């Protein structure tokens, strides 16, 4: 009896050993040789917490264990409209890096991203991608140059503690802009903090948030496509949106004293409890934890209020793509796609990988279950969320307003042509409205429109 059990155990051990040997033999055979390929990959933004860094490093170790012939060097990385071009020109981007939806196609057309078509088409889940999402990373000639990291819808993030302190119900975020305005005033009046704050730095974020506001009122920044696109920055909804900001800033004085927030600054200010409400991508909670160590109990997220009577009103949606340097050789390209598959894509489509990923994140005290949008389809998104359910460590009940509301909203992509230039043209308009009581909004919008139009015609 005893001996047979021992024999069984022994044979199991041997079997496992043989299997392991086989697997490693197969994997080294698959890579063709034992030659090690080194790739550098975008990791976290500068200034992330040690816990977040440790979590990322453990992902890398995991990957290297599965792919012994690939060595991964994490490089801290943040896409900024104002610095990306210099890094691109200088060739100092990591092998694998991230770009927003808005830029990948043009960069691909310019030959500045590696062609991944052959590698990507071999991925088992390739056919399942949402065609609209994969199109963002496909050049005009049909080459695939980038894969989705994730998609987001713009959302209203609010501080539940400040809501309560101002006598507002933290479970009932504003659903109209008029409500948002009065809530903001109430928060400022009661707590002295900025009721509503907005990014307005000259690095295109000001234009991005203004466009979000304008979409929610039913306006658009462009009509037509390609070089024939027409800039429509001076549409009535932009005017209305800016006037709303003007009232909140100068009549209510509910927007605080800082009007030069960039993406990171406003996240930091929000996490520090100095901002009642602000607009940012729905997935920003990850960053609020990894870079700013936010207290989860203050966090609330809701959909952007949409104008009820405007037919075109919708929520601005965007996303991040993962791309590879154009000068990466075939081996690095293959290794890069393996990393993209492992780190970005599998957790969305593969149960084992999703669970493993969630476990690593939880162990590193990083959030699991942050609201995002499907890059495949809604069913797959729900399925993936059900796999990681046991590991969800974000305050889900506080995210309910968003999670129930977002799928009822119409999702509108960012302006398709010269996106960043359009945003850039809008930056000074937002700044002017927030820093000059007597800003001539009509004139500012006309100027912005002509410089956006010039950028569109020049293909910038």
């Amino acid at each position, binding site marked *: 009896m005893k001996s047979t059990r021992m024999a069984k155990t022994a044979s199991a051990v041997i079997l496992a050993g043989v299997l392991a040997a086989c697997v490693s033999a197969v994997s080294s055979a698959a890579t063709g040789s034992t030659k090690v390929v080194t790739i550098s990959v975008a990791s976290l933004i500068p200034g992330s917490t040690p816990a977040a860094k440790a979590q990322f490093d453990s992902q890398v170790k995991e990957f290297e264990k599965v792919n012994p012939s690939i060595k991964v060097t994490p490089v801290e990385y943040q896409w900024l409209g104002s610095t990306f071009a210099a890094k691109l020109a200088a060739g100092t981007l990591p092998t694998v890096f991230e770009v927003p939806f808005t830029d990948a196609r043009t960069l691909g057309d310019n030959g500045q991203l590696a062609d991944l078509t052959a590698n990507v088409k071999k991925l088992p889940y390739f056919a399942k991608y949402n065609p609209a999402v994969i199109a963002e990373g496909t050049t005009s000639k049909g080459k695939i140059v980038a894969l989705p990291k994730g998609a987001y819808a713009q959302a209203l993030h609010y501080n539940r503690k400040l809501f309560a302190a101002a006598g507002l119900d933290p479970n009932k975020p504003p659903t109209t802009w008029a409500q948002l305005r009065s809530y903001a005033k109430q928060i400022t009046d009661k707590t002295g903090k900025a009721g509503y704050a907005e990014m307005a730095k000259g690095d295109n974020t000001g234009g991005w948030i203004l466009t979000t506001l304008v979409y929610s009122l039913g306006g658009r920044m462009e009509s037509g496509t390609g070089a024939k696109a027409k800039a429509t920055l001076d549409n009535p909804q932009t005017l209305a949106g800016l006037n709303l900001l003007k009232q909140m800033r100068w009549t209510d004085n509910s927007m605080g004293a800082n*009007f030069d927030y960039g993406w990171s600054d406003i996240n930091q200010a929000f996490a520090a409890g100095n901002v009642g409400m602000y607009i940012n991508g729905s997935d920003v909670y990850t960053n609020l934890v990894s870079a700013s160590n936010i207290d989860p109990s203050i966090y609330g997220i809701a959909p952007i209020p949409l104008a009820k009577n405007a037919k075109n009103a919708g929520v601005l949606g965007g996303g991040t793509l993962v791309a590879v340097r154009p000068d990466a050789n075939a081996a690095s390209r293959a290794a890069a796609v393996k990393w993209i598959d492992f780190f970005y894509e599998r957790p969305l489509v593969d149960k084992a990988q999703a669970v493993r990923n969630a476990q690593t994140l939880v162990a590193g005290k990083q959030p699991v279950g942050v609201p995002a949008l499907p890059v495949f389809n809604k069913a797959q998104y729900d399925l993936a969320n059900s796999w990681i359910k046991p590991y969800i460590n974000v305050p889900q009940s506080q995210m309910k307003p968003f999670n129930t509301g977002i799928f009822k909203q119409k999702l509108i992509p960012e302006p398709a042509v010269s996106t960043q230039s359009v945003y850039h043209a809008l930056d000074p308009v937002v700044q002017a409205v927030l820093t000059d009581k007597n800003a001539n909004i009509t004139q500012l919008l006309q100027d912005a429109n002509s410089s956006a139009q010039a950028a569109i015609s020049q293909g910038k």
Partner: protein
Amino acid sequence: MAERDPKPVRYRARRTPVTWVRGGGLAALIFLLPMLFVFGAFSWYPIVRTAIMALQHTNLVQPATWVGLDNFRTVLHDPLLPTAVKNTAVFAGLALVFGYPIPLVAAVLMSEVRRLRGVFSALAYLPVVIPPVVAVLLWKTFYNGDATGVFNTILGWIHLGPYPWLQSQGTALPSLVLESTWANAGGTVIIYLAALTGVNSELYEAASVDGASIWRKVWHITLPQLRGVLLLTMILQIIGTAQVFLEPYLFTSGGPANATVTVLLMIYNYAFGNSLGGDYGSATALSLMLAAFLAIFSLAYLRATRSWSTR
């Protein structure tokens, strides 16, 4: 500049390559090599390259194409250019108003201090040794527009403010100049102090014998004796502030609403600000225009002040 030309050290007359080497020709060349390489590669060649690039359209991705004066036209038609030129001029002008007379007064006072002179100089110079980036980031905290900002708290003691500092189009640029003056005035003080020690004391003694008042001595002896240094620091300061970049870039990125965009920030943004690729042609065209302006301005300045400074 070369008021006298001392004789070179010659080792032997040179005629053939051998005597050239023996005569020190080779040695001279060897001593010059590092300088020729570094200046050739990092000064003379880039200057020539600028002139070429200003006539080209290039973004390092596609091959460069000749476009004639197109870049200059693009720059001149950029609606931002007048704003940037105006801001740069205001910055330079304000920097002169703040940073020119105050160090002079301070230096004259300090030169007459009988005790603790080292303490005075050290205190004046201290801001200069702080790394400028640290200074800007520190002042950014001071300029916090909240009522609980550092400056607003201090001004609140005397019931002033709160002021928006960097957050208003009217006060942003002066705030930048204020920090820049703080960071740089100490160097100017020290230069004036050094120049003051060069003033011939016999002149003062003679004036004292004649019964001249202190004001008369300052006006008729100190200032005229300093005029060479005064004129020079003025033009150097103007040339420096015309190329101001650090303050607008770190404080405001040119905002709010372009109120602090300077010419150099514009050049930077042409070259590095667009995420889809740089417009190096326009950047070099604008930098050439700035250089040409500064050259003409300096010549005119030297001309206009020559009679006064050599009188």
